C-alpha cells in the first residue's frame, strides 16, 4: 500500500496541508490519551512509591520496628512490578512521539526534545538504583542499602521536572526562534526548560504523584483495617502512606489555585472552558456541572459572581469568555469544564479525611477509630487517581486545538500513516489486559502475604533452584 501523502515534514501548513483523515486524527488522539492516561498512574507510583518505601525502611532500621521493615520489603516488591510496567509503558510513549505525532517532532523536536534528554538520565539512574535496592536487601549492609534508595527518589524529582516541563513547553512554548518558513532556527535550552508554565505545572504534578501514591497505598490498608486486621503492621502501613498524602493535599490546593490564575492569564480560552464562560464579562458565576448548548449553560448549578470573586477577589473582575478567541481556536468546553469540576471537587473533598486524620492524631496519637473514616480513606485512593486524570484532561484537552499553543495544531502534527484506527484497537486491547493483569498480580501478592505464605519464588521457573546449587 502506498502512503498517500509525501509532504515534507519541514513544510508548514502554508504549503497545501495534507490533513489526515478525521478518523485517524481522532484515533491518534485516543491512543495517546489511553497510553498516557495509563502511564501517568504508574509514573506517579514510580515517583512517590520509592520515597514511601524508604520512609518505611528508615523507620524500620532506626526505630527497630520489624513491621516497618516488612512493609518496606513488601512495598519494594510491588515497586518492582509497577516500575517494570511503567518502564515499558513509558517506552511506548516515546515511540508514539514519532508514530503518532511526527509533525510535532519534525518541526519542534530540537526544542521540545531537550527536557526529555534530561529525563533520559533521570530514568537511567532510577533503573540502576531500583535494581540495586530491590536486589540488595540481603547482601548489602543496611546503610548502603538505604543509601542506594535515595537516588531513586531524587531521580523521580528530576524526572517529574523534565517530563512536566516538556508539557509546560507545549502550553507556553519558549526558548527558540522561528525563521520566515516557520522552522526553528535557533534554540536556547534554558528558555525551553524554564518556560512560563514550568513552575506551577511541575510542582502541581509532583504533589499529585505523592497524593495519588499516598492515598492509593493507604486505601489498601484502610480496606484491610475495615475487615478487622487491626494489627500494628496494618495500622503502620496505613499511617505511613496516609501521612504523605495528608501533607501533600493542602499544598496541592494552594498550588492549584496559583496554576488556575496562571492559566487564566496565559491561555484565556482554556480558562473560559474550565469555568464554562462563553461571553467575556464581569460577575461571572462559578458553574458546577452543566454543559454549553448554543453558547448557553444548560444544567448544573451556577453560584453567582464566585468565579470573578475567586479569580480577582471582586465580583467586578472581568474574565475572558470563549468568544475572546475565534471559533476554530476554542477547546471542547464541556469536557474541560466537567474534568475541572471533578479535579477541584475531589481534591477539596480529600481534605476531609486528611483533616480527620490530623485531628485524631493530634488529640489521641491514634488513627481515627470510626469506620466511616476508613470507608472514606478506602475510597480516597481511587478518587485521587480520578482527580489526577481529570486534571490531566483539563490541561491537555483545554489546550486544543493546539498541540503547541498558538503555533502548531494537533491536526497538523498527526502522522500521515493510514490505519491508525487499527493501531488504536490493538493498543486499547493490550492496555486493558495489561492494566487488569497488573492489578490481579499485585492483589495476588497481597493475598499471599495475608495468608502468611513465604513460598514466593519456590516454583519451577523461579530463581531458587539455580541459586541453591
Amino acid at each position, binding site marked *: 500500500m502506498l502512503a498517500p501523502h509525501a509532504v515534507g515534514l519541514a513544510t508548514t501548513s502554508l504549503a497545501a496541508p495534507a490533513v489526515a483523515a478525521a478518523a485517524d486524527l481522532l484515533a491518534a488522539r485516543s491512543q495517546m490519551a489511553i497510553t498516557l492516561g495509563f502511564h501517568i498512574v504508574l509514573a506517579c507510583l514510580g515517583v512517590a512509591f520509592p520515597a514511601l518505601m524508604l520512609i518505611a525502611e528508615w523507620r524500620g532500621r532506626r526505630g527497630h520496628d520489624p513491621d516497618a521493615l516488612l512493609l518496606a520489603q513488601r512495598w519494594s516488591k510491588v515497586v518492582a512490578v509497577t516500575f517494570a510496567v511503567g518502564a515499558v509503558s513509558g517506552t511506548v510513549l516515546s515511540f508514539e*512521539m514519532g*508514530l503518532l505525532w*511526527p509533525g510535532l517532532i519534525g518541526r519542534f*523536536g530540537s526544542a521540545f526534545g*531537550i527536557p526529555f534528554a534530561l529525563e533520559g538520565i533521570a530514568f537511567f539512574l532510577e*533503573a540502576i538504583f531500583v535494581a540495586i535496592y530491590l536486589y540488595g536487601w540481603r547482601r548489602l549492609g543496611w546503610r548502603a542499602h538505604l543509601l542506594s534508595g535515595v537516588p531513586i527518589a531524587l531521580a523521580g524529582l528530576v524526572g517529574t521536572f523534565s517530563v512536566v516541563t516538556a508539557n509546560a513547553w507545549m502550553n507556553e512554548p519558549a526558548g527558540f526562534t522561528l525563521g520566515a518558513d516557520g522552522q526553528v532556527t535557533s534554540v536556547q535550552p534554558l528558555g525551553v526548560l524554564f518556560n512560563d508554565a514550568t513552575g506551577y505545572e511541575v510542582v502541581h504534578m509532583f504533589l499529585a504523584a505523592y497524593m495519588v501514591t499516598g492515598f492509593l497505598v493507604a486505601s489498601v490498608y484502610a480496606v484491610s483495617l475495615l475487615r478487622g486486621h487491626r494489627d500494628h503492621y496494618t495500622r503502620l502501613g496505613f499511617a505511613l502512606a496516609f501521612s504523605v498524602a495528608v501533607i501533600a493535599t493542602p499544598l496541592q490546593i494552594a498550588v492549584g489555585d496559583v496554576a488556575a490564575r496562571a492559566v487564566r492569564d496565559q491561555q484565556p480560552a482554556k480558562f473560559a472552558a474550565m469555568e464554562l464562560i462563553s461571553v467575556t464579562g464581569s460577575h461571572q458565576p462559578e458553574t458546577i456541572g452543566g454543559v454549553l448548548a448554543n453558547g448557553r449553560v444548560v444544567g448544573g448549578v451556577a453560584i453567582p459572581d464566585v468565579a470573578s470573586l475567586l479569580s480577582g477577589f471582586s465580583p467586578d473582575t472581568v474574565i475572558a469568555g470563549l468568544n475572546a478567541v475565534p471559533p476554530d481556536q476554542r477547546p471542547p468546553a464541556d469536557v474541560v469544564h466537567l474534568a475541572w469540576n471533578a479535579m477541584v471537587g475531589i481534591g477539596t473533598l480529600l481534605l476531609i479525611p486528611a483533616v480527620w486524620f490530623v485531628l485524631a492524631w493530634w488529640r489521641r496519637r491514634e488513627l481515627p477509630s470510626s469506620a466511616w473514616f476508613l470507608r472514606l480513606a478506602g475510597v480516597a485512593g481511587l478518587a485521587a487517581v480520578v482527580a489526577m486524570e481529570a486534571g490531566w484532561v483539563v490541561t491537555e484537552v483545554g489546550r486544543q486545538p493546539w498541540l503547541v499553543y498558538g503555533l502548531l495544531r494537533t491536526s497538523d502534527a498527526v502522522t500521515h500513516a493510514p490505519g491508525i484506527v487499527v493501531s488504536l484497537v490493538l493498543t486499547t486491547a493490550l492496555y486493558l489486559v495489561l492494566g487488569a493483569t497488573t492489578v490481579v498480580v499485585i492483589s495476588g501478592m497481597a493475598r499471599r502475604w495475608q495468608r502468611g505464605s513465604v513460598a514466593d519464588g519456590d516454583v519451577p*521457573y523461579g*530463581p531458587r533452584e539455580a541459586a541453591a546449587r
Partner: protein
Amino acid sequence: MNAPDVVAVVLWAGLTLYAVLGGADFGGGFWDLIAGGDERGRRPRGLIDHAIGPVWEANHTWLIFDLVILWTAFPLAFASVMSTLFVPLTLAAFGIVLRGSGFAFRRVVGRVAGQRLFGAIFAVSSIVTPFFLGACLGAIASGRVPVGNAAGEMWASWLTPTSLVTGALAVVGSAYLAAVFLVADARRRGDAELEAYFRRRALAAGLITGAMALVGIAVLHADAAYLYEGLTSRGLPLVLLSVACGALTLLLLARGSAQRARVLAAGAVAAVVVGWGVAQHPYLLPTTLTIASGAAPAGTLTALIAVTIAAVALIGPSLGLLFVLDQRSRLEAEGEGFLGMSEAPPPGR
C-alpha cells in the same frame, strides 16, 4: 569533528550499547523459550532469570536514551523513520511491553500456570522485538525511509530481503551473545552442567550468526548498494574485526575460557553496529538526509553534548556499581524466594 558528528557518535554509542546489553537480555528470552518443559527447563530458566533480573531495565534504557537523542538532535530523521516504519515499530513497541511486563509478572505470580503463561509471553516477545527493531534498521540502511511524514512505503519499506536478514540477524546475534554471557554466569556459579549446556548453544548460535552474516552481505550486495559499498570500503576494517572477534570467541569457548569469550562476543556485535554507522556516513537516512543537514540548531546540540557529559559522569559510575555488585554476587536471591528476600526481616547490621 563538528557538533552534529559528535552527537551522531553519541547516538551510535548508545545504539551499540543497546545492541550488546539489551541484545543479550533479548537472547536470554530466546533460550528461555526453547528450554523445554517445566522440569527440563527449570535450571536454565533459573539461570536466565537470575542473569537478566537486576540489569534488564537499565539495559533497556539505552533504547529510550537513543530515541530521545535522535528526536532532539535529528528531528526530521526521527519523524521520517517513525512514520514510515509505523507497522514494524508499533509491533516492536508491543513486544517491548509484553517482554518487560511478562518478565516482571512471571517472578511474582504464585501459580505454575501463571508462570508458564507469563514466561511464554516474555520469551516469545523477546524474539519478536529484536526482529522488528532489526528489520527497521534494515529499512533505514537500505535507503527505504525518505524524508517526510509517512513518505515511504508502509509495507514495502521493510518487507524486503535486507530487513528480513537484519531482523533475523538481530535475533540470532542476541541469542549468541546471551549464550556466551550465560556460559560465564554458569561458571561463576560453579555449575559445570549448565556451563556445558550453554557452551554448546553458544557455539551453535555463533556458527549460525556467522552464516547468517555471510548471507546478509550477499543480500546487501543485491539490495542495499550504498551500504554494501560502505561496508566493503571504509567499513571493512570493522567488518574484519567483527569476524575476527566472532571466530576467536568460538575458539575461546571451545577451550573453556568464558570471561574473555564474553568480551570478544560483545566486541563482535559492537564492531558490526559501529561498522554500519561508518558505512553509511555521512548519511542518517541513506541517501537522502545527511547528519549535517538533518541536525538541530547549535544550541540544541550543545545542550545534548552537555547532557551526554553529565550522563557519562553520573550513569557511568552508577552502571559500573550495578555491574560490579551483580558480578560479585551481591545482588542475589540465595534461594530465599523472590528478589532474595526472606519474609523474616533481615537482621539490622
